[in-house]
């Protein structure tokens, strides 16, 4: 097991090195002339040259890369052209809002996804199975930016039940920051008004984001559950009188979760992509909205800082998933 972990960590270093190369290429080489983009076409030649010098664009490429790596290792992702703040600080500010959104969406998707996946597998080819199937295919086919808008039209525009932007109503003060998650901080502070208001604000974006992810999980759980239910050991347990419900929960589910765990880890990538779009639609002050605003103003340090941070986070999540897999599978554990 330790050999596996060591190998994974070595892989991690190779991958992160590769990721840094790609983001370096994207921020310093592909865009053509970043200095010209900053100063604009109307600037004098003198200002333009000064900016080039300041940005280190006149240095040889390898020197630029070394500088870039040096910054990266010290947590310096450059300065945002739009906010004039260090990108890392901006991202830290916006991180809790994204975490709150993604975390709740993820939990809801996992719980419902496992439930629906098991149900449709056990009732294979029944009416429930068909409904579940249409449901999950719809989920992966819905453009998030559109289903978000449609939800806002209905629940905010027509019915007026739910707020459609930001994390809290304007007149409600944010709870004192402890975790950065408003739902938890408001409970810790005993501020029920802020709590219920933040829940109201979460309902729509979380549901929209969870739905896409839910479909992916449901599909995976259904497939691996169908596979496991055909295995010999299920037949053995059945032949020994183990009751159906016990059989499904204690014998089948755990074995079905193992292949699903890996897929769920990988699908977190699409969850993060979906979060960018969801935050944009719901004007949710998280990292995703930050990056889309940055794209609008061609703020490359911010875009690339976000991208590399997400990539590293995603790689780490998948490392965790691999470890979880080892815990679940006794055959690898030793």
């Amino acid at each position, binding site marked *: 097991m330790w050999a596996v972990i060591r190998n994974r960590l070595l892989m991690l270093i190779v991958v992160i090195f590769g990721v840094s190369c790609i983001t370096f290429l994207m921020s310093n080489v592909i865009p053509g002339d970043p200095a010209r983009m900053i100063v604009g076409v109307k600037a004098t030649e003198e200002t333009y040259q000064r900016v080039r010098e300041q940005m280190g664009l006149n240095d040889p490429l390898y020197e630029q890369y070394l500088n870039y790596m040096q910054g990266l290792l010290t947590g310096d992702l450059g300065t945002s052209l739009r906010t004039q703040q260090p990108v890392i600080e901006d991202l830290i500010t916006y991180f809790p809002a994204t975490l709150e959104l993604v975390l709740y969406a993820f939990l809801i998707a996992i719980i419902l996804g496992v439930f629906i996946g098991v149900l449709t597998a056990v009732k294979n080819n029944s009416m429930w199975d068909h409904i579940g199937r249409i449901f999950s295919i719809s989920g992966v086919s819905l453009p998030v930016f559109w289903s978000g808008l449609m939800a806002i039209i209905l629940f905010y525009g027509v019915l007026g039940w739910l707020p459609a932007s930001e994390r809290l109503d304007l007149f409600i003060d944010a709870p004192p920051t402890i975790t950065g998650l408003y739902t938890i901080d408001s409970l810790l502070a005993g501020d029920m008004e802020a709590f219920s208001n933040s829940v109201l604000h979460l309902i729509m974006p979380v549901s929209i984001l969870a739905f896409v992810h839910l479909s992916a999980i449901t599909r995976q759980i259904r497939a691996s559950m169908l596979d496991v239910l055909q295995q010999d050991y299920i037949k*053995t347990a059945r032949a020994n*009188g*183990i009751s*159906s419900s016990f059989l499904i929960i204690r014998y089948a589910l755990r*074995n079905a979760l193992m292949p699903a765990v890996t897929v769920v880890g990988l699908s977190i990538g699409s969850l993060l992509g979906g979060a960018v779009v969801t935050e944009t639609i719901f004007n949710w002050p998280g990292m995703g909205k930050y990056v889309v605003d940055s794209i609008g103003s061609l703020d490359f340090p911010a875009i690339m800082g976000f991208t590399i941070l997400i990539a590293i986070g995603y790689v780490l999540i998948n490392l965790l998933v691999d470890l979880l897999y080892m815990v679940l599978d006794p055959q690898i554990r030793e």
Partner: protein
Amino acid sequence: MLLEITDLSLSFHTLYGTMPVLDRVSLSIEPGEIVGIVGESGSGKSVTAQSVLRLLDRNATYTGGSIRFKGQDVLGMKEKEIQGLRGKKIGMVFQEPMTALNPTMRIGKQLANVIRKHQGVTQAEADRLAVEALAAVQMKDPQKVFRQYPHELSGGMRQRVVVALAMSSPPELLIADEPTTALDVTVQAEVLKLMKELSTQTGTSVMLITHDIGVVANMCDRVYVMYGGTVVESGKTEEVLFHSNHPYTRALIEALPEGKPKSQPLKVIEGESFNARKRPVGCVFWDRCPKRTARCQEKPPVVEGLNGHRIACWEGKR
């Protein structure tokens, strides 16, 4: 009579349409008896065995006949009632020990689950009984095996665990579906010996499904020979082995390697069993029978021999 199967017919629904798999199979097992069912793959022997515990998938339909266990109608039972039979009154051992145990659950836990289900004892008591059950199948270190996972055991040990599962609350009938086919020859003998001993100790009847008539010769009191979803011959083991006139049974016996000079090649039964969709109207062995005649295109009669020996063949007379 412990188990009595009468005229059991069964079909599978598949993509190709409905396939009849069993055609009026009848067999019975007395208390304490070891009964062999022998035949090649596709003869319906496994399907017959799984029917007794109603373990077949939903695409199987019973089209006629009955299965009675101690007089109770098995096919008419509710799911709850059948669960009470499985593992408690009737135990089952499958062919493939490598995949027959849950890979993510400790051996002890798998045993204790079954014991608790059938004996309604506390967890601690179930654990104790589980260790006992492992000792009963002659595990050298039952305490250790109790804590192990299936992948840590050899094939022979796993098959003993499967036997222990089936015998944990001594059943009245043990169905063993090719229990040794996947094992090494030496381990095969051990597992068979173990089952025979357990059967003698507990008075459990055994239904032993195999394609190996040699195993039948060593183990069974009586034997049923199946071919193409029907029973073609039945009777006491020595009657069937030494006085059979059925061409199929004869071919099975002649294919045995024992007691033959090495130079003589093993006899192989030529041809393949018929396509299940094209069941012959007459004798099921028609396609491959070396002794077939024109009248074999009609259903053969059952010829009765000594001691309940029955042969379904036109040439069955001695």
